[in-house]
């Protein structure tokens, strides 16, 4: 039996329960919008490129271009409308960020609140590197510390022990 099976079942149950507590905007209804491409192919290409940059708020790890959620469809049409009415790519993205925050960007911007996100991993790596270097340097230095030499008495004892051993071995 696969030991991970129970984990999967558990995960499934947890997902199902969390899905029940909040209804994502996916239900079909009378006012469903449909994906109608823009007439100008260049504009449509721009819209499609922007769709890939925006995160779906319902299926959180998909872009609105990949998601079937109704809200994602609404946002796809919203992007087309903004572009159709002459907005630049930046203006269109800003329009949506104003409403949903930086969270909707799959590529989060570098700013003071996201420094930890962007530079944290590099920082942790550098810390680890420094730690390793210090550790290695210390372990190389340590054997060089002088070891107290044996007294003449100990020297004699060692010699007799070695002689003893050599004798029995042969």
């Amino acid at each position, binding site marked *: 039996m696969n030991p991970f099976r129970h984990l999967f079942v558990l995960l499934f149950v947890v997902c199902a329960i*969390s899905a*029940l*507590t*909040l*209804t*994502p*905007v996916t*239900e079909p*209804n*009378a*006012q469903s*919008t449909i994906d109608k491409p823009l007439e100008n192919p260049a504009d449509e290409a721009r819209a499609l490129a922007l769709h890939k940059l925006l995160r779906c*708020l*319902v299926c*959180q790890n998909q872009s609105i271009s990949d998601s079937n959620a*109704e*809200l994602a469809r*609404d*946002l796809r049409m*919203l992007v087309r409308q903004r572009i159709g009415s002459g907005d630049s790519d930046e203006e269109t993205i800003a329009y949506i*960020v*104003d*409403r*949903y*925050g*930086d*969270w909707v960007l799959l590529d989060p911007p570098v700013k003071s609140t996201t420094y930890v996100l962007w530079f944290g991993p590099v920082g942790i790596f550098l810390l680890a590197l420094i730690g390793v270097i210090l550790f290695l340097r210390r372990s190389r230095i340590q054997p060089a510390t002088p070891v107290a030499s044996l007294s003449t008495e100990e020297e004699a004892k060692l010699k007799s022990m070695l002689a003893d051993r050599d004798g029995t071995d042969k």
Partner: protein
Amino acid sequence: MRLGYVIPFVLFFALAVALYVGLGLKPRDIPSALIDKPVPEFNLPPVKDHDKGLKTADLKNGEVSLVNVFASWCGPCRVEHPVFMALSKTGEVALHGINYKDDPDNASNWLARYGNPYTRAGADRNGRVGIDWGVYGVPETFVVDQGGRIRYKHVGVMTQEILDKRIMPLVRKLKSKQ
């Protein structure tokens, strides 16, 4: 004990605490970009068979208000509905509704059947106003201050406990700041 031996333990515990806190976070709760911003410009017609729609000016009339985004197709909305019915009876705070992407007949029937707790209820049939409010899952509830600024957003079912412990204290605080 030497400092060199203590540091790894401290780092380990710091990481463990950070990860433990992370486990408790709900990734579904997306921080609202609209907190402390004025409510968007909008003007919604009333829900079918009702006479008061909802528009921006209604939320800038010097009253603290709650705005609840609901729909007849939304199961959790049914769960939180009695909480709002009870709240509307107390009359302590104005409660308005945005009926999100709903069929007019269904919305009207839903309010007739379970009761209408809203002073004003606007019908957002195509969901555009919902997008302007940053709505991504129904139900959502906003606290709006006297000047029409969004002060708090709750995503998901409104329970009596959340209302008593988080929403109403904020409403009272805002009211006291007339």
